[in-house]
């Protein structure tokens, strides 16, 4: 009996020891035995700068008015607020002391130099697919072209004991397969380049893929039907990027996708919400070949008719409700005519490509109206193409329209011209109004992405 107990205790100690080792170990990096060049070539640095654009590091690792990459952006998590870190090469506050292997572990495996696990707000589950070559170039850029900034990191506000980092290693084992992208032989080089950019550095799934109970993305590749099938995050609904005619890219051509990522606009829509940041900081800077590759890959993802419903077909029956004689008696119609129609036009078709249509717009067809409510309340930011702000911007109606009026005009829009997104109720507007009010204690800050 005593022997059994001893064996049992010994087994527990071994398992606990193994677990303790596993959750605190520094995983291996292919760069463990490789020293980075002390004076990398200008080409390698330029390549790394481009990789930083594809990965959009600056979007999260900066705050408005702050220095690029100095961190400090607040992100809300269910456990408390966390702050992005300083990733400039400052030796004390930044990553100046990181070797190439340390840098690789942080980006592709979510492990900091001192061995603590990063929160998966850092999209290392996606970045794990990045190639060795891209990591090497990115390191050269950060170490040799980004200016060091002595900006101290803000400690996270997650209380003890929830702030222990080791359990994340177990989360990683379950949800973050750490393997660089490998080409799918059945597809050509362009498709594979697009898949690499979308799944890896572009981390499109961080917003566009629905998440599970553990905040894990429910699919990291085209092998999952849920990959890039649309998700709600930060009060914006990031729509499907699959070939769903209503809620995704089914009606878009590859040229349309290219134009959207290159110019921020096409006849189907204009970037807004979180995508505005992705456009302003990242996609417009990608090469034409890479944008075409992304478009090519996305168009290969099939839609799901069961989820997407009957395809949109334009109907002009709505026009009868928009005559001056009629619109005072149709809820939402007069608000649409007086506030919306001068830009989006009475026929809902917008002004291609400068002002987006509402007829057939993804946001008018997705069941979740968060993006439309959010943009009506808070307006849109400036689309910055080639360093120039565009001339047309959605104004905020927070002060002009009541919850009921916003609900009425959106309900009108969402069933006009053949749209079938479903009605909006005033309670939903009130909830998002409170959560997007900067003065509110429950305001949405950037969530895990």
């Amino acid at each position, binding site marked *: 009996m005593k022997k059994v107990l001893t064996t049992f205790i010994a087994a527990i100690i071994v398992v606990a020891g193994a677990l303790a080792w596993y959750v605190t170990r520094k995983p291996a990096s292919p760069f463990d035995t490789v020293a980075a060049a002390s004076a990398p070539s200008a080409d390698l640095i330029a390549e790394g700068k481009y990789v930083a654009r594809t990965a959009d590091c600056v979007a999260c690792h900066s705050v408005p008015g702050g220095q690029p990459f100095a961190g400090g952006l607040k992100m809300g998590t269910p456990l408390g607020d966390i702050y992005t870190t300083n990733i400039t090469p400052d030796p004390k506050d930044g990553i100046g002391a990181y070797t190439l292997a340390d840098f690789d572990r942080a980006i592709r495996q979510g492990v900091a130099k001192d061995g603590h696990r990063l929160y998966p707000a850092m999209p290392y589950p996606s970045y794990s697919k990045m190639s060795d070559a891209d990591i090497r170039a990115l390191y050269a850029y950060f170490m040799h072209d980004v200016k060091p900034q002595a900006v101290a990191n803000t400690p996270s506000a997650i209380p003890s004991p929830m702030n222990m980092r080791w359990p994340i290693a177990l989360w990683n084992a379950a949800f973050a397969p750490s393997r660089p992208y490998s080409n799918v032989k059945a597809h050509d080089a362009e498709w594979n380049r697009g898949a690499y950019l979308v799944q890896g550095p572009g981390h499109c799934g961080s917003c566009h893929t629905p998440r599970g109970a553990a905040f894990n993305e429910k699919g990291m590749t085209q092998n999952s039907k849920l990959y890039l099938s649309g998700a709600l995050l930060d009060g914006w609904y990031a729509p499907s990027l699959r070939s769903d005619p209503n809620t995704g890219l089914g009606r878009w051509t590859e040229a349309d996708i290219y134009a959207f990522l290159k110019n921020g606009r096409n006849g189907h829509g204009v970037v807004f919400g979180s995508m505005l940041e992705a456009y302003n900081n990242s996609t417009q800077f990608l090469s034409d070949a890479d944008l075409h590759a992304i478009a090519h890959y996305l168009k290969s993802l099939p839609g799901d008719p069961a989820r997407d419903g009957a395809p949109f077909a334009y109907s002009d029956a709505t026009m009868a409700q928009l005559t*001056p*004689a009629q*619109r*005072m008696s149709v809820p939402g119609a*007069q608000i649409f*005519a*007086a*506030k919306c129609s*001068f*830009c989006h036009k009475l026929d809902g078709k917008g*002004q291609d490509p*400068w*002002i987006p249509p509402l007829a057939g717009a993804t946001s008018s067809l997705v069941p979740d109206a968060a993006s439309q409510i959010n943009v009506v309340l808070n307006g849109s930011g400036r689309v910055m193409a080639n360093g120039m702000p*565009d*001339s*047309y*911007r959605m*104004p905020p109606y927070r002060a002009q329209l009541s919850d009921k009026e916003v609900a009425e005009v959106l309900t009108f829009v969402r069933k006009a011209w053949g749209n079938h997104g479903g009605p909006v109720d005033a309670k939903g507007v009130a909830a998002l109004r409170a959560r997007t009010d900067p003065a509110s204690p429950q305001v949405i800050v950037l969530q895990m992405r």
Partner: protein
Amino acid sequence: MKLKINGHSVEVTSDPDTPLLWVIRDELGMTGTKFGCGLAQCGACSVMLDGKVARSCVTPLSSVGAAEVTTIEAVEADPVGQRVVEKWIAHQVPQCGYCQSGQVVAATALLKENPKPSRDDIAAAMVNLCRCGTYNRISDAMLDLAGLGTAKDGETL
């Protein structure tokens, strides 16, 4: 590109995304059309495109195409516009006047589409803003133009 404006065809060189307002004011030098909010909210920049009211601050030049643009400068060349201006004077509508070219254009567009608008039609169509608060006088002039008599004391539509 070619722009048909106030009965003339002119060649303009602004970029396709330029708001029509800036083409009218800056390139063509016609300053009767005003900049108010730049966001299609106030109506000071109203012009007519093929007789329908449009807000030129949110109308990209490329959206105009072959449509005939009418600005306040030519509104009196139209018999309906001429009547509107006469009634605007008769009812002494303007105060500072800044929004009034837009108001007159909106009124003209409504009456061209519907010569006998109801009170609801007028309320639905006359949504331009006026910081002086000339709404009572605008209502008077519109009811007169529609043949609906005059507004009740203090009534605005």
